């Protein structure tokens, strides 16, 4: 793995993780609402076949300039600005959680510029009968309960190994969350639906929808809805995984992607 920081013409600064051989087909992975956790297993597995770029969204970790991004169009164009700044042509886009929402918007905006699209437990839709829990009203310890199929692993991954009961660690975690989820709120608050469903007719890219069987934020009904809205799609369900599927079942996700993109 290598790391670099790029600057977009808009003025955001973006840390990008880079995995795999430069000659392989480029794959851009957009992370979810909780940002990049320490575990990079899924990227290493994807990098066996692809050149994997993992940009960190401004507002998360070391990336900055989030004040320049205010609405869905800003975040969508930012996604393309990053692709252009990396010098990539027609990438495979893989988006997890909130990153799936951005990837789908990017593909609706410029369908010909995307080779293949993979949506993993992606935000963007709202089903009246399956309301998504309000993540902005979660207490820090509740993220683990809702995001992971196995809450035991959650605590260690989400807090980077620090003790959530320790006041100082809690403060650091909370400050980090205030910045990152504050940014996420521009796309997801109060209802995470910025009307992508009316733009999905433009999405002619072949799309794979991958969903954690036990996603407690968005049930598999959301996977079926994405599948129904996207004529060129197939839906794969992954066992023993919640919303954080890429961290809970990295091998299953990598296999699904590799089967989809021969």
């Amino acid at each position: 793995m290598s790391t670099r920081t790029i600057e977009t013409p808009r003025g955001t600064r973006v840390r990008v993780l880079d995995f795999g051989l430069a000659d392989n087909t480029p794959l851009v992975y957009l992370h979810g609402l909780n940002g990049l956790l320490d575990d990079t297993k899924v990227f290493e597995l994807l990098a066996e076949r692809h050149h994997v770029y993992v940009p960190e969204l401004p507002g998360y970790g070391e990336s900055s300039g989030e004040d320049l991004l205010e609405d869905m169009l800003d975040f969508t164009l930012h996604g393309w600005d990053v692709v252009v700044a990396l010098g990539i042509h027609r990438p495979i886009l893989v988006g997890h959680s909130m990153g799936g929402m951005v990837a789908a918007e990017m593909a609706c905006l410029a369908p010909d510029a995307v080779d293949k699209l993979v949506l993993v437990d992606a935000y963007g839709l709202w089903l009246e009968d399956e309301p998504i829990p309000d993540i902005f009203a979660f207490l820090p310890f509740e993220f683990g309960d809702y995001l992971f199929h196995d809450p035991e692993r959650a605590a260690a991954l989400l807090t980077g190994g620090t003790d959530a009961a320790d006041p100082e660690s809690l403060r650091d975690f909370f400050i980090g969350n205030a910045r990152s989820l504050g940014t996420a709120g521009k796309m997801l608050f109060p209802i995470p639906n910025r009307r992508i469903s009316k733009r999905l007719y433009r999405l002619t890219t072949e799309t794979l929808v991958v969903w954690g069987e036990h996603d407690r934020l968005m049930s598999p009904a959301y996977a079926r809805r994405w599948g129904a809205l996207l004529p060129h799609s197939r839906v794969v369900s992954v066992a023993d995984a919640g919303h954080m599927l890429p961290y809970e079942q990295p091998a299953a996700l990598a296999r699904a992607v590799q089967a989809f993109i021969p």
Partner: protein
Amino acid sequence: MRFTWFNLMPWPYLPDDFREKHRSVWVDIPNRLYDPVKGNAVYHEYMDQLEYADELGFDGIGVNEHHQNGYGLMPSPNIIAASLARRTSRAAIAVIGNSIALYNPPIRVAEEFAMLDVISGGRLIAGFPVGTPMDTNFCYGQIPALTRDKYAEAHTLIRRAWAEEEPFAFDGKYNQLRWVNCWPKPIQKPHPPIYIPGGGSVETFDFCIDYDYNYSYLSFNGYLAAKSLMDSYWERVAARGKDASPHRAAFAQIIAVADTDAEAERLYKEHILYFYNRCLHVAPAFQNPPGYRTIKTIKATSLAMLQRRAQGRQPEVTWQGLVDGGMVIAGSPETVRQRMEELIKTLRVGHVFCLLHTGNQTDEKTRHNSRLFAEQVMPKLRHLWPEWDADDRWWIHPLEQRVVPNGRVASHLQ
């Protein structure tokens, strides 16, 4: 010194097991607990009390805005204020205030405040709160990270709407209006006194100081706990080169007066405990949406309530704890006078919002409390800042001769 009689308008019928059965008095409190038939009597009782406070000689009568809230039944304070503007003719009408980022477009606030100022003959105090996260974000759906930006734009729009005498176009980020043209416009020039209720966000200090607005610290934690925050406020005032007029700041305080200290406990204890144990039972989950507070403010905040082990364990507060901690100033007129003087001096405030109705306090006790305070405490606190007695920069300037209902004319009694 000025004193405003303030009523939060709590719902007085929250059940005894409210804390056990419900996680929050605010945002997701089921409205099956509200009974509109009882509500009919509750509103009139509370509004009668505000009018009574005008008769008792309080300088102002105050209302505020909350949503989906079991202790604040004024989603629209302007409706109450409109009635008070007709039914009273002397006191300032302090609307503390309208959450200007929630009005679409916020020109609505410029218009309604102008109406209130004109109907009342220039007695309006205009409050512009950012709004709590419960009201602003969870109930009214504003994006937390953009709330302050939207608030700032609404403030600019309202001030300009009151100042300009010709229509103008406003090309804002959140509001695009081709024709802004405020009819009516306020009597008070250049605008009614503006008060900013703050809950401790450090950014709000500079905003108040730079515009010469009153900083109103509305806390239910009492004056002892407020000392360090108000000290930092006054340090900022000095650092930005402004004078130290105590009228730059106001504080809200729960007050309970009786003939003796023991009598105060006997009369008011159950109602004040009702307020602290039921009305202030707000889920921590709704108090800190990411993005609402700035990083600077979070660093200055205690987060212990966010821990798993803290859930469901907030201890019940006790009367003695409330009185010793200064959350409540209670006792005989002399005890209350001493502690009020201490409050006024230590916080350096020229204006107190007096919470003389608390929780499910009965009408009879509320009137008793208010009368004792007005007759036996307030007169002795009037001139604690003699060198600033003439400073009316943060006070209303009503018409000398103003029309009141049925064509009668009232003159300025001040």
